[in-house]
């Protein structure tokens, strides 16, 4: 195994003293792009073109090309526009944005400022999940320093350009990571997804054109503009540009965040994370956060970690949240836990999700408790399929996909649970 390059994009301040400080960030070239843009008034189209070339794809989970998204906001339309950073990071298994904000908040801020410039927005909001006290404080410090250095505010560095932003803590609802629910929440309303279209690019915060990106996406922008779109694309592979932070959790010896090139083989990433704990055998991996389909060991071990490869393998890269499960894992129990999560987090708006998530959760818990029947397996699949694609937002899909994939790949384990009223896995963890 050749050494895998790491920490070249969002984590570039790691390993330096006071990584989150303005001084460290600037010593590594931080805010140079912002200063250049302010001075040269770089045409926004040029910036969008660089992003398009880089093939930076949305790091929040959907993988939509960021350059393309930025081109949707009607930049020249009159009136207030907004840029919003989605730092809600609520998907079980995901903890990368937290570290960006703790260790490199300025890069996210610079990315948002550039986005504001490109889209003609003068106000930005960074929406964080309610539990993010430490990242919030770090971002508040960073904003204060940036403002005091004249990098934010009115008429920044005499350029005639205005941009300021605010950090905002949510109240701990998963659904507020859905961008339109986030906007509702930011407006002070109950976090419920909006029907789309219209999309936020045309009708966003307070009904104004709004661009919403993930923290990691914004934080990737300054270095792409510094080193070029081609440089970023070459870090990864075609159609999957750049590095990506993978949050590796579960049964590994060294859980944590790893920023590695897209396309890195899973087995290499697993090795970086110290391999499976206690020398156990790998059983399954959820590669992109709890909502994406699970992959059994034999498939994931042959798969590279990028959008296209995981899609081909039958799952999704999602937010890069790699949940590793070894042979001691009871898949029924895992699914019961996941199903309960979506049951609790459904906003309650759409009938299939509101009613279906509770039904799924209860049936799976019954199987787990040894009260299942074999026909439940078909019922679960059927109910899941009736939620999929029938709701306003993707939470319905997120609740359905794990159920479908767990039963698809581990049907005999569920059947054993039902028939023997106990777990197939002995000494399960």
């Amino acid at each position, binding site marked *: 195994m050749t050494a895998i390059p790491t920490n070249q994009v969002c984590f570039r301040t790691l390993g330096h003293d006071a990584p989150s400080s303005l001084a460290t960030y600037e010593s590594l070239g931080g805010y140079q792009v912002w200063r250049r843009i302010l001075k040269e008034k770089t045409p926004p189209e040029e910036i969008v073109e660089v992003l398009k070339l880089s093939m930076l794809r949305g790091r929040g989970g959907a993988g939509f090309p960021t350059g393309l998204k930025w081109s949707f906001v009607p930049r020249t339309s009159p009136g207030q526009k907004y840029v919003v950073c989605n730092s809600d990071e609520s998907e079980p298994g995901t903890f990368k944005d937290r570290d960006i904000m703790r260790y490199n908040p300025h890069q996210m801020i610079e990315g948002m400022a550039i986005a504001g410039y490109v889209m003609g927005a003068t106000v930005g909001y960074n929406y964080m999940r309610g539990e993010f006290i430490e990242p919030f404080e770090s971002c508040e410090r960073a904003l204060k320093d940036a403002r005091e250095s004249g990098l934010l505010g009115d008429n920044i560095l005499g350029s005639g350009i205005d941009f300021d932003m605010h950090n905002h803590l949510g109240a701990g609802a998963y*659904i507020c990571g859905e961008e339109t629910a986030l906007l509702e929440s930011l407006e002070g309303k109950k976090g419920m997804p909006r*029907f789309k279209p219209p999309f936020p690019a045309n009708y966003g915060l307070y009904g104004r054109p709004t661009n919403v990106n993930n923290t990691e996406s914004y934080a990737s922008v300054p270095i792409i503009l510094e080193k070029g779109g081609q440089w970023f694309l070459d870090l990864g592979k075609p159609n999957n540009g750049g590095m990506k932070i993978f949050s590796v959790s579960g049964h590994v010896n060294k859980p944590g965040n790893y920023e590695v090139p897209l396309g890195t083989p899973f087995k290499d990433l697993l090795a970086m994370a110290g391999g499976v704990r206690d020398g156990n055998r790998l059983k399954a991996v959820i590669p992109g956060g709890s909502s994406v389909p699970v992959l059994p060991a034999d498939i994931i071990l042959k798969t590279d970690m990028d959008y296209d490869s995981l899609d081909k393998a039958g799952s999704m890269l999602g937010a890069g949240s790699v949940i590793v499960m070894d042979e001691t894992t009871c898949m029924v129990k895992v699914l019961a836990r996941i199903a309960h999560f979506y*049951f609790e987090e*459904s906003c309650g708006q*759409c*009938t299939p999700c*509101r009613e279906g998530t*509770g039904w799924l959760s209860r049936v799976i818990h019954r199987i787990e408790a040894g009260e299942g029947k074999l026909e439940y397996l078909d019922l679960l699949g059927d109910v899941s399929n009736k939620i999929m694609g*029938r709701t306003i937002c993707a939470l319905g899909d997120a609740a359905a996909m794990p159920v479908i994939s767990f039963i698809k790949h581990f049907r005999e384990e569920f059947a054993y649970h039902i028939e023997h009223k106990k777990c197939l896995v002995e000494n399960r963890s």
Partner: protein
Amino acid sequence: MINIEIDGKKLSVEPGEMIIEVADKAGIAIPRFCYHKKLSIAANCRMCLVEVENAPKPLPACATPVGEGMKVYTQSEKTIEAQKSVMEFLLINHPLDCPICDQGGECELQDVAMGYGEGVSRFTEGKRTVKDKDIGPLIATELTRCIHCTRCVRFGEEVAGIQELGAVQRGEHMKIATYIEGSVDSELSGNVIDLCPVGALTSKPFRFSARAWEMQQRPTIAPHDGVGSHLYLHVMGNQVKRVVPREAEAINETWIADRDRYSYESLHHADRVTKPLVKQEGVWKETDWSQALEVVAKQLNIIAKNDGADQIGCLASPSATLEEHYLLQKWLRALGCQNIDHRLRKTDFRVKEQAPQSAALPCEFTDVEYYDRFLLIGSYLRKDIPMLNHRVRKAVMLGAEVSVLNPVDYDFNFDVAHALISDVRLLSTQLAGILKALSANAPLFSTLPDYLRQVSPDPAQQAVADSLKAGEKVMLFLGSLALHHPEAGLLKALAEGIAKETSGELAFLHEGANAVGARLAGAMPHVGAAGSALPTPGLDAAAMTHAPRKAYVLHQIEPEWDCAYSAQTLQALEQAEFVVALNTFQSDTMLDYADVILPAAAFTETSGTYVNLAGHWQSFEGAVVPQGEARPAWKILRVLANLHDVEGFDYTASTEVRDELKQQVEESAAQSHEVAGQTDTSSLKSYSASRDNTQQGLVRLTETPLYRTDAFVRRSPALQQTTDNQRTGVRVSRQVAEQYKLDPAHPVTLQQGDYSVSLPWQVDEALPGNHVWTAGVAGLGAPFGAIELTQGKVS
């Protein structure tokens, strides 16, 4: 126009319309729960999912705009599968309690479940239950049945303009609730019952009293305000069991006010008079019609002969029908009596109303939405005429600016741009200030008393003037408080002046269901039917009180509530030689002053016509048989005239009465809406004589709360229990409470001249200083006059 296809049917449709709207127009049924044409699109129930060609997933028909060449399949396998699966989800937690659910038989969920539900449920888990909420006397809740369509929530936000219901918690735990434990108090609240597709919100007074299929639906017109909302009465046997809206886009859209929905409860009140009653030597006796009518005819004859017909006075409710108003005046005028009036709460008659107008609004109700500036003068429009207020609210949503001039800082359900909250004695000064800000040399000033000529506009008045001036279409409303004000004539002239300077229009918010009709019918002392001139004018409502008559004919009124000078009116009635009351109800007070009580049919039991503020003649038929021996009032009046040998009373149907008047109106010249500048300004200077310019001392402010407006609503138990109706007793400003060191534990005594009453009191922060507010309290003097307040130590 673009071309689409639904189920193979080619349609030419407007771009931007949603699939469901297009399908509805084409008569293609798509099931739905959350969609309602009058509410915003939520797209949350998912029942209307349909297959659209080239779309990977079924799309909600309510939220998918049509596009050129779009092909929609409402009956395809994919569509039916999607809809059936949504129905399964809707039913898993819905209790199957249809047999004990009030909605059973008229339930949208039940109906759709017949088409899309399965006979057996696969759901074997425990069903969700939700604790019921008590949200007030009007609406019953059974929230376990809720399917979370949020129509009721959106209604509050978008139509009622007050967020009282919301969806709290999330997912399966989501429930409809008031955020803080409380009641739902909007004056339009009952509409959520009609909106609720299931039995989660039902009518509390109606609950468990009839099944949908046991009732017949009969149309009528609402009898309480000048909108004349279209109603359906739901009748079982001979009983009105409930009232629901009848769709009429130009009048009430699909809504009705709670007052119109729940006043039917009074129809079975114990006070109903079901037999003619005659007082003989101080004792009330039930009698038959011929005897009772003969007593009335004879007594009126004697007084007319001995004392002159001008010793008879007639006070009629502004909510009586057009036919009743017309027959009353035709009969009494044939006897030589001109003393007839329906303007019972008016106190200033110095400026005579010109020939009757065919409407009190310059436009249709729907047009109100397109005015961009309003000035409300002396009006709590929201509670006075809720459905007209709804139109103003819609205008505000479109960007209109509303200014108000009121003595109370009322709680409107739209943004008020400029609020002039003024001492009630200074309303004319405020208007003069606005007029001066618009035009210092307005010709009107030369006709005004000195104290108005000399005003100089303050910044607040200037702001109102600027707002009106910037408008393209300006409407001024003279509300009931302005019309009843002791300077009503001045206020009207000033409003006309302002309208002229702003190229605006003036609207009169008369009380009652038929105020415009009463004017057309000649139920006024100075003009006859259809504006015909009279040889000598009679006495107006106030004059009939101040100069007591020997006989009174009272038509559907209770003077203690309905007349401006209530105590004085009762005194006049007590001293009269003969009083006949045509009324649906009796009361102890009535038994005191009346000599004959003739049981008049209720509004549901008679045919007739109301002319609404927009000038629509809205006729209706009797929906049920009158109770007991009560008879439609137009028939009673016909017989009385016959007994007096008056010519031309051979009507066999109320429509003949209406058509007779209609012909006269069409032939008469006075048909247009009253326009600015019609007021005879010659009398305006005389106002200085009565004006108290000191604004010293306390002033009484009288209001008729919305559930006290007429005898029907006053006897509707559910309406009487509402929060709105708790606005009673005596209210004083904070300043008065402090100045008089009032003790909250004890009542206060109010005194106006010889009249005094003692009542409990409370502070009202919305009142200006020096004001004592009463809810049409009987037993006092002038409704906007000086008043004394004391609080003796109660032992």
